[in-house]
């Protein structure tokens, strides 16, 4: 018996002794280090990117994979505290206000009956996130989708007032998390006494203008310094941006908090602006190819008139053998409607004024024009409004149809094209914003991450990750969600790694990275109508 006990004791000892243990377990103190930074209370300030919005909606798994949430997980290994996120109620991406859906569900990649993939709104479930269901904060992730720089400032108090949602004065996403209807984003952030912060704001200050094809106002050109008068599609005045940004940085650093600032990417890095080519009209397209000779005959008459008026560069010709550029309206061109009417009348009779109005500022697109993503669903399609209008003018159905094909016989409207002058306005503002961001980072000793140049690399050749490469190619490139603007979880992971580099460099921290290939890209689902 004594023997039995002895041997049992030996066995038990053996069992304990054989548990494997690393020489240097990463759970050991000192494996990671926060350096001169303090991650105990990290607050992330920003817009939709910071929130983890993607594919045209805010959803749980997107929020979980925002760069801010990834950073917080890495910080947790170096003294980081809890990081709270105002999670929505589901993964649909949509939201309700008073029970009525006001925000669409997100985009998923669906396959049609022929097996062709394309983005579509998810309809597998109704959204359950109620904007009016105000959450008890504060939250460490203060990314507010749609916010521009000045929306975060103290002057924008009330940006989270539910009463203003319907009229567009306030932001439904901030409504959910605002400490009160009169709160401002920066006040709610600062009241948490962050020890560390990230700030990525300003994208929307140019993106609203860019995604709408430049239909808004360039407030730099207008010299308007009052953001309360701005429309959603305007470019924020450079000085307004600088003022707002400086206020944010000053307030965030007031108690000595360290942080990291991110600059803003060029729109030419985003698939929203680079996916649709300027010359998408293929002679092989059965809906377009057979029409080319007829179209060229009609355009021959118009081109003669252009030549006669002295604007031969506006001539429109479709190639029988190669892809042709779409016809666009360029609002920067001199409007020659009146002259054109006179010139066209002898040959076109009563049709002349209608044609003249349609082509008074028309030209074929060039490689310098950027067609926005939504143009892909209208190019080559019949514009039913214009068709009805032409029929109303007395044109035959056939004739009206012939002159109502988007991008072919009906110039694409302003909202579908960023012409060079619009791009220049965007780039000029962006350069100014980025100069502000970088100088404020330097002036305050903050870490700075040049996300713009990395995104440029993603768009021009791509960046290698474990097992592949991420590019900005729409749907398949891996870096962007299906809205063509917002980064994918994988791009968030890459961004988090780059931010960790910047934080290590500036603050001497030692932090673990993530493997971007562990993070997904787009969502597949055929639960669409």
């Amino acid at each position, binding site marked *: 018996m004594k023997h039995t006990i002895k*041997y049992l004791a*030996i*066995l038990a000892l*053996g*069992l304990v*002794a*054989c*548990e*494997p*243990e*690393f*020489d*240097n*377990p*990463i*759970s050991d103190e000192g*494996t*990671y280090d926060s350096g001169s930074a303090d991650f105990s209370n990290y607050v992330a300030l920003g817009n939709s990117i910071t929130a983890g919005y993607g594919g045209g909606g805010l959803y*749980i*798994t997107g929020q*979980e994979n925002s760069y801010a949430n990834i950073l917080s997980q*890495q910080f947790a*290994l170096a003294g980081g505290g809890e990081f709270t996120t105002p999670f929505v109620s589901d*993964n649909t991406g949509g939201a309700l206000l008073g029970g009525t859906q006001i925000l669409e569900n997100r985009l*998923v*990649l*669906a*396959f049609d009956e022929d*097996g062709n*993939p394309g983005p579509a709104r*998810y309809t*597998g479930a109704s959204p359950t996130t109620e904007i009016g269901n105000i959450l008890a904060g504060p939250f460490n992730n203060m990314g507010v989708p749609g916010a521009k720089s000045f929306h975060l400032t103290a002057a924008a108090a009330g940006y989270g007032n539910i009463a203003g949602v319907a009229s567009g004065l306030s932001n439904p996403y901030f409504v959910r998390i605002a400490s009160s209807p009169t709160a401002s984003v920066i006040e709610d952030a600062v009241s948490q006494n962050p020890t560390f912060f990230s700030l990525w704001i300003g994208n929307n200050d140019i993106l609203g203008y860019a995604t709408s094809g430049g239909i808004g106002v360039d407030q730099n050109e207008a010299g308007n310094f009052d953001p309360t008068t701005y429309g959603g599609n305007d470019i924020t005045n450079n000085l307004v941006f600088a003022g707002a940004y400086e206020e944010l940085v000053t307030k965030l650093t007031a108690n000595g908090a360290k942080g990291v600032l991110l600059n803003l990417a060029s729109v030419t890095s985003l698939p929203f602006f680079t996916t649709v080519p300027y010359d998408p009209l293929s002679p092989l397209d059965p809906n377009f190819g057979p029409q080319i000779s007829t179209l060229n005959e009609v355009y021959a008459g118009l081109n003669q008139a252009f030549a006669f008026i002295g604007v031969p560069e506006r001539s429109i010709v479709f190639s029988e053998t190669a892809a042709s550029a779409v016809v666009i309206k360029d609002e920067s061109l001199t409007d020659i409607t009146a002259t054109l009417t006179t010139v066209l009348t002898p040959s076109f009779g009563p049709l002349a004024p209608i044609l003249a109005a349609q082509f008074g500022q028309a030209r074929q697109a060039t490689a310098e024009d950027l067609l926005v993503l939504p143009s892909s669903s209208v190019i080559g399609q019949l514009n039913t409004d214009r068709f009805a209008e032409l029929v109303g003018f007395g044109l035959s159905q056939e004739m009206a149809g012939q002159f109502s094909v988007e991008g072919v016989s009906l110039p694409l409207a302003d909202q579908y094209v960023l012409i060079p002058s619009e791009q220049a306005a965007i780039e000029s503002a962006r350069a100014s914003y980025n100069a502000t961001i970088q100088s404020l980072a330097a002036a305050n000793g903050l870490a700075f991450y040049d996300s713009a140049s990395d995104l440029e690399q993603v768009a021009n050749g791509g960046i290698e990750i*474990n*097992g*592949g490469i991420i590019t900005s190619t729409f749907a398949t490139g891996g870096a962007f969600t299906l809205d063509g603007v917002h980064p994918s979880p*994988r791009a968030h992971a890459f961004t988090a790694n780059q931010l960790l580099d910047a934080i290590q460099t500036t603050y001497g921290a030692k*932090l*673990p*990275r*993530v*493997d971007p*290939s*562990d*993070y*997904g*890209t787009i*969502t*597949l*689902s*055929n*639960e669409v109508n």
Partner: protein
Amino acid sequence: MKKQLLLVLFALVTFVTYAGGYRVSVQGQRAMAMGHTGVAVVNSAELVFFNPAGLVYLENKLNVSVGASGIFTDVIFQNEALGVSAETDNGVGTPLNVYGSYKVNDWLALGLGVYTPYGSGVTWPTDWAGSHLINNIDLSAIYIQPVIGIKLSEFFSIGGGPIFVSGSVNFNRNANRTTSDFEGNRSNITVDDSGVTNFGWSLSAMFNPSENFRIGFSYRSEIILEAEGGEATFANFPNSPGVPANGTTTFDAELPLPAELTVGISYEFCDKWLFAFDYNRQYWSVYESLDIQFGNGVEPSVNPRNYKNSSVYRFGLQYEATSKITLRAGYYRDETPVQSGFFAPETPRNDSDGYSGGFSYAITPKLGIDVSFFYLRFEEIDESYDFGTNATGGTESFGGTYKSSAFAPGLGLTYKL
């Protein structure tokens, strides 16, 4: 008494074997206690496995040995660059062995053995960092083998017999690093099959140049387990024609149980002492790739393994302390068949040192209890599997620092008549 104490101490500080890949070298309690040596040891019915040629040299007419071990394995993983870590929660492996031999006459012995030389049970936390390579695996193979031993002279005998194998497998892993259903649940695939059978054989010889010196040789053939029409379950894939449909389908796969060659010696000295040395050569190079074909037309899963042949060096010592108590101890060096860059977390084995010990206690002259234990010690190792396939067909790597251990107490009964 002092000598006894010394040996007990030796037994305590020395431990035993397990082997590389999914070979589980625990085929006899007495052998196990001696570093799993035995090809040249004439001791008990365990010879059915180790060297059937030796059965004819057993003193008794009828010999029976039964035994089982409980193998406790543990693998830990961490990746300092990524700040991730994981630990397996494996069930207890229970290799068992039943051997019987009967000496028909002076030159002929018959025997029957049931044993489990291959198996693996590894359970990582579901959705852990390497879940695209494995969540869990449970693999086992039961060998049933009738043997014959023929004495050609006092100096030389031969033996061998056919082997019948029945194997089973259950293996789950995530489809890749990222694919999940709409709610974020990771898409995964389970393959399950049992009753996969095949045949093999073994051949052995024993040479006794002198009364206290034996030389043994044993060869066990390779057996390929071919799972055909097993059940594959696809789960948590999103509802999309772009990915496999959820539900069950069939799968085909092959798993090799490699051939093993053993040569060894035993030497009795100082009356009560026995020293044994075995050299195993395991022909793992047959395990080139684990390829799984699915019945639903999904791209086959191709997983290069590229194992190399490997060796194990075993040393064992036995001391008859009293007429009732025999003490044993052993050591072995087990070289891994896994090559650098092919270190998959389903069989996370690098080179290891095995330490074993044990004793037999004769309850009666006919019936004895055999106790063994072994501890397998692995150095921690920085390794990776560089041949993973990602969702878009790219080749990706997964790795970090691994450390494993295995501990197995075992109990057996020996009966002789």
